[in-house]
């Protein structure tokens, strides 16, 4: 039977350019068992931490102490989540992770918008309005992306202190804009350079200037790259720890910093279930962005990683 069906398939493929390639194999060949077996084991390894986080956060403390970390909860409780969100302590403050969450929102939204606005205009200028020296600055920018942050942190502290915004949200937003600039500028520059030049020329002849072309032609045509940049920036800024800890005062600490302070605080009894609930809550935003955006996320990190 399989012979005949493959014959039919072969003759069909001769008639029309259908799916080419080798003949389909049986699902349960040794090769497939090896292949899917390995992939499955790898997938389980990658999923275990997520599973352990969720399971631990749904247990009560007595159960955590008795059971093993991989066993599902006998009695599901959401109390650790409530506690992590509204009561967990960092030092003397006991108002939970919610404060860090809102700080992170207040940091991430303006930082994302401003860094993208600045970098997209930069990329546009580099792609369409080159001037003498523009490539030199761009090269410095790209090379700068490889310099460890630790080298530049203190000079930035001094600059921000001189401007009187050290320790404020504004300062942190500027820092995120600065360090997002290399990769984003590169992303936008390459994208704009790939757009047909005739569009730009036609607009020039019609009398449009720098800003008019950017706002009416370039930006509306580039929605996909703006989305990619947003994904890149939201996850990157939300996950940032170093800049949060260096450039803000404790009352403005982003979620990651607060999470670390809650979990790694030395005082008090360790509540592992609350810690894991807090960890999931902090990871939730980038995870949601990741699952919703899917392929665009991959494109973003590929563009970011390969070139940056």
């Amino acid at each position: 039977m399989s012979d005949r069906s493959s014959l039919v398939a072969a003759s069909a493929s001769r008639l029309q350019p259908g799916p080419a390639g080798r003949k389909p194999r049986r699902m349960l060949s040794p090769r497939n068992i090896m292949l899917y077996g390995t992939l499955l084991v790898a997938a389980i390894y990658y999923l275990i931490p997520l599973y352990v986080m969720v399971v631990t956060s749904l247990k009560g403390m007595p159960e955590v102490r008795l059971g093993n970390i991989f066993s599902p909860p006998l009695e599901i409780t959401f109390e650790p989540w409530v506690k992590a969100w509204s009561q967990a302590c960092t030092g003397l403050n006991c108002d939970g992770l919610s404060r860090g969450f809102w700080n992170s929102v207040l940091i991430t939204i303006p930082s994302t918008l401003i860094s993208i606005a600045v970098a997209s205009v930069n990329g546009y200028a580099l792609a369409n309005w080159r001037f003498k020296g523009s490539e030199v600055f761009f090269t410095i920018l790209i090379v700068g992306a490889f310099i460890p942050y630790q080298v530049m942190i203190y000079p930035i502290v001094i600059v921000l202190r001189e401007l009187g915004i050290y320790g404020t949200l504004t300062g942190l937003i500027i820092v995120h804009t600065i360090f997002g600039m290399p990769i984003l500028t590169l992303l936008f520059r390459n994208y704009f350079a790939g757009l047909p030049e005739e569009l730009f020329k036609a607009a020039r002849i019609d009398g449009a200037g720098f800003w008019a072309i950017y706002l009416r032609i370039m930006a509306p045509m580039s929605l996909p790259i703006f989305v990619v940049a947003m994904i890149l920036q939201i996850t990157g800024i939300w996950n940032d720890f170093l800049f949060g800890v260096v450039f803000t005062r404790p009352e403005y600490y982003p979620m990651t910093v607060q999470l670390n302070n809650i979990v790694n605080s030395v005082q008090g009894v360790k509540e592992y279930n609350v810690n894991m609930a807090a960890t999931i809550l902090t990871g939730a935003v980038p995870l949601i962005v990741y699952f919703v955006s899917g392929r665009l996320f991959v494109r973003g990190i590929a563009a970011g990683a390969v070139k940056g």
Partner: protein
Amino acid sequence: MDSRAARRPSRLLRNIPAKIASIPMILTALVIFLGGTVWTVVYSFTNSKLLPRLSFVGFDQYERLWAAPRWIVSIQNLAIYGLFSLIFSLGIGFLLAVLMDQKIRFENTFRTIFLYPFALSFIVTGLVWQWILNPEFGVQSVVRSLGWSTFTFDPLYTSSIVIYGVLIAALWQGTGLVMCLMLAGLRGIDEDIWKAARVDGIPAWKTYLFIIVPMMRGVFVTTLVIIASGIVKVYDLVVAQTSGGPGIASEVPAKYVYDYMFLAQNLGQGFAASTMMLITVAIIIVPWAYLEFGGGRKRV
């Protein structure tokens, strides 16, 4: 004459909006990236303590740095962590990419699973693995409760192997990215190469090893540079997972810099240590940039 002057102003005044729009980039490039780096290197030769002061002491800070046991441990950790994370993330990433490239079903599901850790921060990664590797409740206790009562797997509280505990977490977080880059590279290989290899009767594994891998040189080098520059920056993961402990066993250079600049208020040491980090990165980047860009220009 006048009208011509109006039409063709001096070079500096041409293209004004583009120059104004580039001010943020120019400031970032010159003041922060170039200026900041030079500033830090210059001040690493001073004995600044609480505040930066320009009183030069030559290489004193560097001598002190290389005499400090904590710095030596940090460098050793970075070397071990760097070497193994390069080998394993390239190896595992490439292997997974090859498996994913076998026209499998559920490719998207597998990709989603392998890559999701990359969306998480190092803090989250570190804390999860701190919990999984917890000796009282984690892997060790689970295996012991299965009957193997002498089983010992306690990397986070054993000085000699703590850096491998960090490595496990880092590989979990980062290999998905390597897999994605490698997969993109594999997909970029011409189908005809495969056909030719098949006609010649070369087994698939040999084709990968001796034909595909050499063809993917560019992808490998880029991935290597990405991983390597990430390795030098490793900081949050260690802070979250071990806080540098037990003792100083899992310290890394980036943490040394932060602690000396902002906690110990010994700026000069911090600057010297960060300059050493800069040199490390330069050793990785300069040959790559030379090969990739300098060499390319010559060929053209």
